[in-house]
């Protein structure tokens, strides 16, 4: 509380209102019209891969979980234990031992959706954040029909059931803070891989 018993909240809001009243209230310019890609999936692939993300084709002749198991084991270094988000259905879970995210070779998630214009994956907190962040490799299943052309479209849709937190992942973790050289996997996953379903 500041002098005179007026709370900081009242003081700040009062000063803001006085400044606004003396200036006149300006109107909102409406929506920003950004062009929508005709083919959102290929737009997403282009943008996501140019930021260092990887898009992997699953072998559709085999069950998805079998294919993923082989794929993870063949990575360098081969994945032994995995951390899998609770949103991942049985058919998409690799047949590898579940371990804590901090010790897993890979994290497996299903995206709520993706955005073409920015090459972003939309990952709700219900998918457990540790799975999305701690393992060095993050493999994300993306339903092909859930790729939105524009960020605005995706966020508008998300408003209908907004979880406590949402992460937009648009490539691997990177930094150029040391000697202006880009290094990956600084804090989050060094490899971020998308598989369309």
């Amino acid at each position, binding site marked *: 509380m500041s002098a005179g018993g007026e709370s900081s*909240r009242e*003081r*700040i*809001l009062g*000063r*803001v*209102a*006085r*400044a*606004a009243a003396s*200036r*006149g*209230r*300006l109107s*909102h*310019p409406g929506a*920003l019209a*950004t062009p929508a890609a005709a083919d959102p999936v290929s737009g997403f692939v282009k943008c996501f891969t140019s*930021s260092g993300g990887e898009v992997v084709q699953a072998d559709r002749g085999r069950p998805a979980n079998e294919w993923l198991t082989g794929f993870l084991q063949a990575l360098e270094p081969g994945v032994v234990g995995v951390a899998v988000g*609770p949103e991942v259905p049985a058919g998409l879970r690799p047949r590898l031992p579940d371990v804590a995210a901090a010790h897993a070779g890979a994290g497996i998630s299903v995206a709520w959706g993706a955005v073409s*214009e*920015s*090459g*972003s994956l939309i990952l709700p*907190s*219900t998918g*457990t*954040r*540790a799975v*999305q962040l701690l393992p060095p490799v993050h493999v994300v299943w993306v339903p092909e029909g859930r790729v939105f052309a524009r*960020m*605005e479209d*995706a*966020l508008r849709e*998300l*408003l209908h059931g*907004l*979880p*406590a*937190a949402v*992460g*937009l*992942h*648009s*490539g691997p*973790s*990177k*930094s*150029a*803070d*040391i*000697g*202006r*050289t880009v*290094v990956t*996997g*600084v*804090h*989050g*996953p060094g490899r971020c891989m998308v598989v369309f379903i």
Partner: protein
Amino acid sequence: MIRDYAARSREIIRDEPGVREAVTGATIAFDEKRRKGYAEVDADAWRRWAEGVKNHTLTHLDHYLTEAEARLRANGAQVHWAADAAEAREIVIGLATRRAVASVVKGKSMVTEEIDLNPALEEAGIEVIETDLGEYVLQLLEEPPSHILGPALHKSLRQVQDLFAERLNTAPDGDPDTLARAAREVLRNAFIDADMGITGANFLVAETGTVALIENEGNIRLTTSLPRVHVAVVGIEKLLPRMTDLAGFLQLTARAATGQPIGCFVSLIQGPAAEPGDDGPEEVHVVLVDNGRTDVLAHEHAWEALRCVRCGACLNACPVYRQTGGHAYGHVYSGPIGSVLDPGLLGLHDAMPLPFASSLCGACEDACPVRIPIPELLLEWRREAQDEGLTPWKERAALAGLASVATQPGLYRLAGRIGSRLGARGAARALPMLGEWARDRALPKPSPRTFRQLWREGIE
């Protein structure tokens, strides 16, 4: 005047020549990426739109602050209001001590630098660990950040190699990959052990109470996800009305800052973990900070500087900033935006002579994603400084002298004749203020006859 920008600049250029080289190289690279990022979209239209949204928000800020507060509370987050830096520190330290917090991890945040949060936390016996790689380097060196985006961009690879060899036992010639891995190991444990994560915010969306944070490393995602308490310290100017506005600002800010379509990681935080399966923090606190912002908002001209999204584009474009980096400016906000914001936040007297630390070339305004008229605002602060008698007396005397010579034809003729005899250099050196200006410049030789004489004789 509490700082001596000119003396600090001279010292940096003379004693630390590597700073100029590193800052110039890094900012030119950032600026090129920004140009490329703008060229991929209709940047002029995006910037005009963003200017309009911010102007609307700032002139309805009472409405949007109240809406954000109500929404955050409905989401289960707690909202605190801080009139100044001391109050903001008190709130955060109170939260930490009441929850027996022993260690804090931090995401890069300019506002927590502004309110001097780290020393206050340490004084309260709480360990503070900066987790952005550049900030971590600076914390080990006990230096403040030099750039909004690349806090350690004034440091060479060699300097980081030496530092990490001494502190983290890495090989003296470790490459950036090895150095980053060593830091990751230390910081990974810090994330897991920390009781509280502290961040700033790039935006706060009123409609949903969303704290939005943009980054590339993932350290902010971890800071806001793993500790049981998350505190976001947010300047009151960070509001945006709706999620659809955020969609544009996330992309424009990234393009202005690094030319990327968006940061590698964006966190959108509405409140504490609520659903089963969510492993996020049990508590989320948002501290809304004024600390001079309502003074800036009330200023007839300077309020436009509150549109700033802290992308660093104006620093990267500025030929003056490139010579010294941020430390010469003496305040957390440096470069062109600092030179217009600091007089508003600190008071003009305390920010002098920053409005003069510019050549007024206009590159900053062209780069700014929210079209802040920085050169115009610099001139406005200079006018105010002149009116308040804050400029050096020699300069005021020289300008008064010039005014009286220019308005009296007899004196003007006399001055012209003296000038042409002495030569421009001699004349300039003989005059206050101009002497300093002429010291490092080669001046043209004046014509032996004045313009008036030539005019009378008929100019050929």
